[in-house]
């Protein structure tokens, strides 16, 4: 290839997990002795190495996807609310899980280091003229890096996704907070790691403790090739998920701990749809099929409400019959409930019961906690204030289905009967659910009636991202709104599922989905998994020779990296695209909280 510069193609285990720490002093290779010791304890001693494929041997996973961490008494291991990318196994000592919500400042939440205004200004002025130029000395396989590796520990290489664990919880607070002790051999953190969600509790070291931290990609592979571990994790995943959901549900917050435990005993944890739903969704889009036919029904309109449903994770579509079809009028996300209005009405009017007024379907995959009607009426309903119980939709109290325009029930953030500043256009709701944009926490919505197509947003993005914009000002259009091809920072980022190195991850603070350019091996799995085509593979250049592409000498192909919107995470002031729009035509919209955006959407 003319004008190319050779560079070794990155691979999954180029940078072992043990070296992927911000503090050089904490980096310590996993030795053969460490691996041998791990292989002699549970759960690894029960694993059969023969079940693992040659390309992913058990010892290889332990050597490269795990690391041993040492904590002193009171050291924070994981923080409640952080997005987790790993699970922990206690090798020695104890850990204490704090059952109360602590002040985030006290537990030393890691804050992404932002560039100062001056640094931002300098980076804009001194940016290279060619796109996608990188400092290859940061890559583990780089020649310069090899030299540095020999003296590892002396030089600091920053890898951003790790949480610093050096801050300690104040001892008084630690002693006062309600907590439970976890002993040697216990596993925690797998719920957040596998579910791509926030940690549900803070865990601190209780005395000196040694833990094995397992990168979630490693955990996923261990789970995949070992049946026992899979069952063990799935079982815990369900049990803990159930308890955490009930504890976090606003409807249950007036209940005593004992009452919650009683509800937890009778509640049922259900999962609908497929965990890796993106593959089937991509095929569905290509075939242009009616998505409703392929979405599992959780509860049907007209059926008896046999319990309250709490959405634990994922999204569910609410629809009701209209003519020979069904109209989507709203959607439910994490923590929202289904069936409350009907159950409350039926409890008050036992001789004039109403059936469910809408159908609930899993969009992608949904975890649901089902609380049976009797239990709900006995233990939960008496504690719900009357004004918190939503009214029944008009059609559920009449025999005929009335015209929809008069009876569209409350959407997220307001009633959707007609469009006013406090309501969302029903057609727009349908469009957002249909295209699964409801998954987005920072969906780029462009008001085409205001957008002059000046591309100031694109230029602003390119300025901060190596001269290459991280989105395309193009996308699906509904009415005068376009959802552009920009990473939506999904509530359920399925792009993370297949990443072999953990390069694509959520920042602990805020949960922004970002890619660690150093550990990305350019496999393209995330780009292929993104249901919305919002991740692009780019060929990179070395800053020492920016005119030439970097090429792997063995394959003769350019070195690629995955790129996507990072919400200008390192800069102050939020996403540059939004700030650069002169006409206020571009917004990053959190679909979980539409209400603040309604005035803009309906202006």
């Amino acid at each position, binding site marked *: 290839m003319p004008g190319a510069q050779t560079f070794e193609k990155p691979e999954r285990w180029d940078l072992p997990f043990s070296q992927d720490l911000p503090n050089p002093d904490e980096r310590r290779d996993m030795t053969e002795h460490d691996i041998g010791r791990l292989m002699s304890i549970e759960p690894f001693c029960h694993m059969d190495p023969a079940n693992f494929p040659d390309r992913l041997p058990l010892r290889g996973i332990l050597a490269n996807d795990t690391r041993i961490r040492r904590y002193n008494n009171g050291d924070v291991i994981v923080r409640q609310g952080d997005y987790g990318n790993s699970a922990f196994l206690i090798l020695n000592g104890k850990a204490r899980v704090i059952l109360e919500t602590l002040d985030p400042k006290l537990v030393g939440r890691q804050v992404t280091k932002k560039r100062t205004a001056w640094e931002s200004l300098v980076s804009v002025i001194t940016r290279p003229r060619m796109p996608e130029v990188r400092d290859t000395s940061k890559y583990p396989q780089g020649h310069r890096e090899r030299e540095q590796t020999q003296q590892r520990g002396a030089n600091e290489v920053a890898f951003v996704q790790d949480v610093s664990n050096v801050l300690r919880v104040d001892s008084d607070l630690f002693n006062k907070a309600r907590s439970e002790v976890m002993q040697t051999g216990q596993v925690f953190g797998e719920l957040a790691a596998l579910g791509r969600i926030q940690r549900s509790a803070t865990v601190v070291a209780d005395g000196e403790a040694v833990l094995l931290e397992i990168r979630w990609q490693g955990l996923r592979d261990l789970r995949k090739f070992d049946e026992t571990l899979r069952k063990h994790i799935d079982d815990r995943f369900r049990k803990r998920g159930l308890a955490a959901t009930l504890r976090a549900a606003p409807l249950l917050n007036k209940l005593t701990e004992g009452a919650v435990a009683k509800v937890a005993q009778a509640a049922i944890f259900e999962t609908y749809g497929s965990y890796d739903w993106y593959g089937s969704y991509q095929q569905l889009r290509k075939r242009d099929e009616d998505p409703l036919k392929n979405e599992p029904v959780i509860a049907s309109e007209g059926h008896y409400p046999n319990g309250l449903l709490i959405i634990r994770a994922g999204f569910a579509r609410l629809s009701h019959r209209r003519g020979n079809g069904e109209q989507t009028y709203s959607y439910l996300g994490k923590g929202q409930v289904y069936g409350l209005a009907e159950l409350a009405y039926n409890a008050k009017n036992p001789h004039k019961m109403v059936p469910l007024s809408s159908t609930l379907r899993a969009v992608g995959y949904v975890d649901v906690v089902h609380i049976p009607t009797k239990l709900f009426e006995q233990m939960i309903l008496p504690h719900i204030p009357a004004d918190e119980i939503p009214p029944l939709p008009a059609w559920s109290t009449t025999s005929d289905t009335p015209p929809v325009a008069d009876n569209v029930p409350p959407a997220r953030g307001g009633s959707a009967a007609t469009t006013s500043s406090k309501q969302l256009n029903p057609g727009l709701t349908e469009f957002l659910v249909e295209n699964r944009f409801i998954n987005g926490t920072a969906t780029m919505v462009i008001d085409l009636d205001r957008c002059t197509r000046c591309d100031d947003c694109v230029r602003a993005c390119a300025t901060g991202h190596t001269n290459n914009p991280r989105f395309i000002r193009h996308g699906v259009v509904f009415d005068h709104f376009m959802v552009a091809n920009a990473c939506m920072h999904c509530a359920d980022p399925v792009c993370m599922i297949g990443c072999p190195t953990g390069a694509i991850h959520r920042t602990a603070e805020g949960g922004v989905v970002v890619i660690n350019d150093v550990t990305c091996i350019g496999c393209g799995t995330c780009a292929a998994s993104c249901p919305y085509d919002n991740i692009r593979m780019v060929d990179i250049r070395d800053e020492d020779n920016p005119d030439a592409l970097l090429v792997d000498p063995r394959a003769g192909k350019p070195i690629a990296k995955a790129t996507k919107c990072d919400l200008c995470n390192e800069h102050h002031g939020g996403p540059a695209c939004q700030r*650069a729009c*002169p006409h206020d035509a571009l917004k990053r919209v959190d679909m979980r909280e539409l209400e603040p955006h309604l005035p803009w959407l309906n*202006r």
Partner: protein
Amino acid sequence: MAEPVIAITKRRALGGSLALVAIVAIGVLMLSRGLALRDTAFFSGWLLLLMCLFLALYNLRKKLTYPPLMRSATWLQLHVYVGLVSIAVFVMHSGFKWPTGAFETLLWLFYTGTAASGLLGLYITRTFPPFLTRRDEEIIFERIPRLRREVREQAEALIVESVKQADTTTLSDFYAKSLATYFATPRNYWHHVFESRVPVKRMCADLKRLDRYLCDKEKAIAAQLDELIRAKDNLDYHWAVQGTLKGWLFIHIPLTYGLLLFAVVHAVLVHAFDGSVS
């Protein structure tokens, strides 16, 4: 991430009112200075120059993406209303008189050109986008030349096919006479800008009139050609409207630089020859 949103009508009413108050205040101030036999030209001149400098800063802000310098939309609002106030100040400063002398005339022309192009830009940026939205397809401006080439190649291939299949040159003659230039370059700019669809309707009607001379195979090709004519028309529409939305700045910004240069020289000259002013 959501920021407070003020309804556009409310925002316009507020901005317009503030601009009006500013104009009245400046007018009253100038009048009172005039009545007190104090200088008004230096006051309004410096005010105008400062306003022009502030207005020009917006272009600099656009280039500085990250430093926390307010949102571009806020800057634009300030740019629009300060610009409107500056027109009133300009009228007061020039004393409702036509310029005299070459330098003053050029300065006057630069200001009026900048203000007029700004007002034109304001008008088209508020009115053109909904027209673009009403078109079925969103097209990225930079992709239009490539898409236009593809449409032309498809049209040429169809014409070659029509000659091969029907062994007559009815369609190819028509293409050579009426369509070759149409497919070659962007056409009908002014029609598109004024939302007129007359040219494309005329062209399609001309093609339709050929039907009586075409066999069935040629008719099928003519139907495809009709679609390509409309596709090309759509590309030309986007080229014209998006081009205008982008292009007016290529008049506004150079005029601004000219204005700033002349205004600074004007200020220097005025101060250099201000012996009569106390």
